[in-house]
């Protein structure tokens, strides 16, 4: 009897495993045709000289020359003759500050929006608005726009924005804080708009996390006489800490693969403006490996610090 029941159960498990493949099948097809195959092809392109001919293209083996070019010789005329690797390095450095600021800001904002106050739903609606306002082509058009910057908020605002920041820097420096810390604060103030507009999705994730914390935890700790401050550090923070990892990784990827970034622009221009498909592919692969490394390192560091319930 027992054996019979076990056999039937196995049948269901097997059937469910089969159905799993059925549900995931569209992804497997897409992965093969629109991702893995193009990835392999792009790798092959990076090792060949591609010439576009009538009705197609020809490949001429080129070894790792394009990788050598990208790593050692390439200079970008559009970016003051900096090398490709310098530009990647600068991109990564800028990313580090950006990610730190975005994660801190979105955590702060989510906590604000989680409190009860009048007009909360309006405030939430506006806080998520950058998801719409600052996406794709709009961000490309807005950044560096003449009238937008002359009227105030974007980073290109050379006169007023930096003027205030200088005053702020002077005040902060007079308090004998560490210069690096002052630089960080000043850059945060200068980029406040950029940070707020890059935080929409992250606020959403943190907010959803805050709301998934069971209220009974707070009730219990309030009975024990904990203050709001203690509640925050002993309950709220550890409970949402896994989301810090999620949001950090999301922001890293979002910042680095943003098609308006300098490196991305170079990769696109080499392909479609200068028709150097092989070089462009090699650069894209180098950049991809760099991003993978960064994501792996960050995940490694943060996941040690994160608190998991189970």
């Amino acid at each position, binding site marked *: 009897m027992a054996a019979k029941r076990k056999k039937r159960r196995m049948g*269901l498990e097997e059937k469910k495993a*089969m159905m*799993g*493949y059925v*549900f*995931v099948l*569209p*992804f497997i097809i*897409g*992965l093969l*045709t*629109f*991702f893995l195959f*193009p*990835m392999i092809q*792009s790798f092959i*392109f990076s090792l060949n000289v591609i010439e576009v001919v009538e009705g197609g*293209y020809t490949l001429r083996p080129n070894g790792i020359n394009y990788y050598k070019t990208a790593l050692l010789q390439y200079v970008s005329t559009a970016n003051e003759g900096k090398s490709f690797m310098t530009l990647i390095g600068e991109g990564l450095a800028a990313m580090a500050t950006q990610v730190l600021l975005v994660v801190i800001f979105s955590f702060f904002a989510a906590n*604000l929006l989680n409190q009860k*106050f009048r007009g909360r739903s309006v*405030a*939430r*609606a*506006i806080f*998520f608005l*950058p*998801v*719409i*306002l600052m*996406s*794709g*082509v*709009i961000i490309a*058009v807005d950044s560096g*726009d*003449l*009238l937008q910057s002359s*009227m*105030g908020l974007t980073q290109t605002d050379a006169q007023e924005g930096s003027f205030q920041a200088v005053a702020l820097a002077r005040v902060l420096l007079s308090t004998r804080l560490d210069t690096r810390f002052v630089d960080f604060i000043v850059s945060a103030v200068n980029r406040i*708009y950029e940070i707020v507009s890059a935080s929409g999705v992250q606020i*959403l*994730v943190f*907010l959803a996390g805050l709301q*998934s914390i069971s209220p009974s935890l707070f009730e219990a700790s309030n009975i024990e006489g904990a203050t709001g401050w203690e509640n925050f550090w002993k309950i709220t923070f550890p409970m949402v800490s896994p*989301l810090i990892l*999620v949001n950090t990784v*999301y922001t890293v*990827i979002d910042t*680095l*693969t943003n*098609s308006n970034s300098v490196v*991305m622009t170079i*990769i696109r221009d080499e392909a479609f403006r200068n028709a150097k*498909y092989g070089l462009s*592919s090699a650069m*894209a*692969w180098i*950049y*991809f490996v760099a*991003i993978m490394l960064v994501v792996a390192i960050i995940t490694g560091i943060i996941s040690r610090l994160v608190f998991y319930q189970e």
Partner: protein
Amino acid sequence: MNAMLEKITNIKLFGHHRLTGYTLGRLGWSIVRGVIIIGICFLILYPTMVKFLVSVMSEQDLYDISVKYIAKNPTLDNYKTVITAMKYPEAFWNTLKLSLFTSIMQLVSCTIIGYGFARFKFKGRGLLFALVIITLIVPPQTIMIPLYLHFKDFDILGIFKLILGKPLKLLGGYAPFVLMSATGMGLKNGLYIYIIRQFFRGMPKELEEAAYVDGAGLFRTFYKIMLPSAVPAMLTVFLFSFVWQWTDSFYSSLFLSGGLRVLSNALSGVSHAIALHLTNLRGSATTVYLSPVLSSMYINTASLLVILPLLLVYLVAQRYFVESIERTGIVG
């Protein structure tokens, strides 16, 4: 007696005092909070306000130093110029159709795929899901050239060539978007799969098991039991995919340049289009030169026109959207 009275009043006083301090603290915080929230809201809305203010300015206002925000000679001519030069109505309809098609297809495919990852155990699941994350990490620029060539002469193992004598030309139309969306490979689809998977993972197993016991099949359980409760997560995914498809310039410029007219491509090339339009209008032999300020004014008007429909959609959807976050379980 007197002492007792004093004691009571003291207690009351003390209590009263504490209460005031507490209330003051709370009041102080709500003022600070109000200022912060209003400040950030202003920061977010400001560029759009600027766009609107600029869009109703006339050319004189732009060069008038006394005009900073409010136009002295407000006009709607900019809108007229931009709408004709961008061929706005045509681009709008195409974008609407494209965004609706793709976001519905992505919603369907990502929900099915996400459910598969969340609720079934099968060999290679971990690896496949890791690949979902990898598709997010890989910069689309890495696969852009192969994808372009892929759709330029589309073929599956030479079948089309065998039947039609030549591979299919799919660039310039809806096909690349439809094919990629149907297979969960569209713009940021890895993220959507992740959201849906997290949501379904958070749902109690007993719900499904009860349905199986009652004799419902796997598909029936999926669309009768699991889908209705997944509506908040699906709404979030739909809104994201609709909006991001609407403003997407990467895939649009890769697959559609010279083909289907969509808003994002039209916006990228708007100053050139306006220069040409004005040249034709004035019948001049050389292309009209747009000063940087003037061109910026047209670009701001055009980008306002591109986001306007999205703002309207958001105005309607935000209530459900904001409410639904609490139940999305994005993070489950």
